[in-house]
């Protein structure tokens, strides 16, 4: 089965799997930094600036990795999916062009000021730069989710005789039927991923020193996010599922593991979908709950995979399990949010070892859920690139198997080395507790112990409106 098509798919999922985590990190962290700097300017409390400086260094690292892995994506459509690029380019190309013009340049243009410019431009202009970078990350999400959701629910085009998609109505293309579900789902996922990462870092430092004010603030903010955003995400996720039912019923059947169209369908909690026998083996199911959740009706009809020709079905086992990973993690996040609220009211938020340890364990949970959700969406779209219209097999470049194999191997080696090293640097950075008088991301920072060399930091503190 190691043909060029399979290898090209593997290469794309490998490169985008690495990439997607990084912009999600940037989206969440940029907004968090904006809030932190806003709080610093409003209250004048130095601890918020310390937190900003602590996290902006991580942002700098993550953003650089996101830029280089994203650059790869912008060329990979042409190198590995040239038939797709030729056919769908007229529709999705301009949207990605807008992403570059409205988002990438904006982020890149103000990133330098955000990272290195506080002392040069002063706090107000610097805050503006931070806001612009945060807006840029969201603008990027807007366009790329528009592209992605158009591939799920294409509309607003006509087909040329040679099989190209020609744009007819840009509004219909951009605001396609699944866009308003996928965009908030993705943005909330980014926020939750960063909230749990920040919360985990805070928890780790609270376990060592429960009185560190910066650790307390980041942990507390993360717990509020868990409480408010995790349940909201579950609601948005449910709505996304209903949208999928309306427009991509085969994907829904694959993620539910339903093989036959039935009224009053059960909800299969766990099992092993089997593409050969067309059954879900070892199924543990709750009667009627499938219909209740999906149709909000006890006896509603739910489509099974038997409604679709075998060559039009997504590979159910992967979709089925990725969906359960995502939902399971989402429920645990909400649960932790409520636990945090209960302990907050009891005054034990910063001292409860169980909660703190649970948060540390949950550090990567948001990112894992996000990747699992992405697998559900994209593998569930198969065997099409443009759902129902253009098959993946007709999208691939005329590159021979050895070529794709060699480049895949090169990507694997380089990404694992580079992003592995990046993760080590990130974790090393996070292993250090935030301190009062935290320094900014000047390149010679690692050799200088923050707090011992308060030169620039003291100058910045003097600039603070409340100081």
């Amino acid at each position, binding site marked *: 089965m190691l043909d060029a098509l399979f290898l090209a798919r593997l290469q794309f999922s490998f490169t985008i799997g690495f990439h997607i985590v990084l912009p999600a990190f940037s989206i969440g962290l940029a907004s968090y930094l904006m809030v932190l700097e806003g709080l610093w300017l409003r209250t004048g409390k130095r601890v918020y600036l310390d937190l900003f400086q602590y996290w902006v260094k991580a942002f700098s*690292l993550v*953003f*650089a*990795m996101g*830029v*280089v892995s994203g*650059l*790869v994506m*912008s*060329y990979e*459509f*042409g*190198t590995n999916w*040239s*038939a797709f*690029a*030729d056919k769908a*380019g*007229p*529709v999705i*190309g*301009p949207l*990605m*062009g*807008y992403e*570059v*013009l*409205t988002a*990438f*340049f*904006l982020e*890149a*243009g*103000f*990133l*330098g*000021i955000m*990272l*290195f410019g506080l002392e*040069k431009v002063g706090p107000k202009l610097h805050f503006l730069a931070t806001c612009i970078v945060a807006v840029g990350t969201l603008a990027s999400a807007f366009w790329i989710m528009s592209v992605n959701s158009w591939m799920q629910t294409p509309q607003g085009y006509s087909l040329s005789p040679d099989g190209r998609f*020609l*744009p*007819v109505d*840009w509004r219909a293309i951009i605001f396609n039927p699944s866009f308003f579900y996928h965009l908030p789902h993705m943005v909330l996922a980014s926020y939750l991923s960063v909230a749990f990462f920040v919360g985990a870092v805070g928890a780790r430092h609270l376990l060592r020193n429960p009185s560190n004010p910066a650790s307390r603030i980041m942990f507390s903010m993360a717990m509020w996010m868990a409480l408010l955003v995790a349940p909201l995400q579950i609601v948005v996720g449910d709505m996304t599922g209903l949208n999928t039912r309306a427009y991509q019923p085969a994907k829904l059947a694959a993620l539910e593991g339903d093989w036959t169209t039935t009224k009053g369908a059960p909800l299969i909690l766990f099992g092993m979908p089997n593409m050969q026998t067309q059954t879900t083996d070892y199924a543990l199911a709750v009667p009627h709950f499938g219909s209740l959740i999906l149709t909000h009706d006890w006896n509603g009809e739910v489509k099974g995979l038997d409604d679709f020709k075998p060559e039009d079905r997504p590979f159910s086992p992967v979709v089925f399990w990725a969906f359960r990973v995502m939902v399971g993690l989402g429920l645990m996040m909400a649960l932790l949010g409520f636990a945090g609220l209960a302990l907050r009211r009891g005054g034990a938020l910063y001292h409860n070892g169980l909660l703190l340890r649970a948060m540390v364990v949950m550090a990567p949970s948001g990112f894992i859920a996000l990747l699992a959700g992405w697998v559900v969406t994209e593998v569930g779209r198969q065997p099409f690139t443009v759902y129902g219209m253009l098959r993946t097999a007709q999208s691939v*470049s*005329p590159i021979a198997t050895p*070529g794709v194999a060699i*480049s895949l191997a*090169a*990507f694997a080696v*380089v990404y694992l080395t*580079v992003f592995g090293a*990046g993760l080590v*640097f990130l974790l*090393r*950075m996070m292993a250090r507790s935030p301190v009062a008088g935290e320094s900014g991301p*000047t*390149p*010679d920072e*690692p050799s200088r112990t923050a707090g011992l060399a308060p030169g620039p930091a003291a100058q910045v503190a003097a600039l603070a409106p409340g100081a």
Partner: protein
Amino acid sequence: MLESLDLPLIWAGLIAFAVLAYVMLDGFDLGTGILFALEREPGDRDVMVNSVAPVWDGNETWLVLGGGGLFAVFPLAYATIMPALYPTIIAMLLALVFRGVAFEFRFRAITVTGKRLWDFAFFGGSTLAAFCQGLTLGGLLQGIKVVNRAYAGGWWDWLTPFSVLCGIAVVVGYALLGACWLVWRTEGDLHARCRRHAGILGACVLALIVMVSLWTPLLNPLFSARWFGWPGLALTSPVPVLVALLAWQFWRGIVLDRHLMPFLCALGWFVLCFIGLGISVFPHIVPPDITIWQAAAPPKSQAFLLIGALVLVPIILIYTGYAYWVFRGKVIAGSHYH
């Protein structure tokens, strides 16, 4: 209204502008990396990296615009060039990955070995990326075989003596831009040494410009017809004269130790070479067969993105200029910006 214009022509101009902006901007910061081969002292290397750290990301975004723009408005060109030059593009991207993360990693490495390793990644990534860009340019100029809207050539078509010469020319050219940038933005010993590097590299670049210029018209009879036929001659004949004038200015700038002049002259050479390339290739976007009109996306696609580009590109230029202005002045060792 927009759709009645010659949109492919306008877009060809805009994409050419994006590529030129990329070459000029990322050229000097890749060149800074290439010069790690000559500058081995850790303190100097820190200054070199600091001089480009606040701007490299914006510089590289022009490459995303070049690729993304091609995808958006000339999808056929994008869908044939990328598979044809698959190995050089992939190698360039991987090289840029190494180089981009090295900005962050080299300052965070704890051990001396670790730091040396990421310094090498910064140098190697910069050099390989520049070399691959030259190979890509050479491979494109010598022509790409397209049948039925898809690349129909072989795996190694891009590898020829001409493309290798282009690769070397781009590496040396970027090194020159990097050296001139450092002449402008540093002081003391590093400045003095970069001035010497720039003088030697400038002479090499002139020789390479002559070699590539003499070779290019031989690749394709169309190219020579455009260079030496009418009205091409009216456009091409001033190019060598201007190159020579810039060489005179460059030489004066180096000898008199002007800080900005050599950089401007080196950029001028790149602009002139780019114009020369444009004269050779226009109106083809994938030589020898596909023109900008054949490769164009439907007018509706081109018009939609053009509205955004006309509004946003000037704004981008303004705030990019602002970012450069904020970080103006000499970079001083041991501290970030002063």
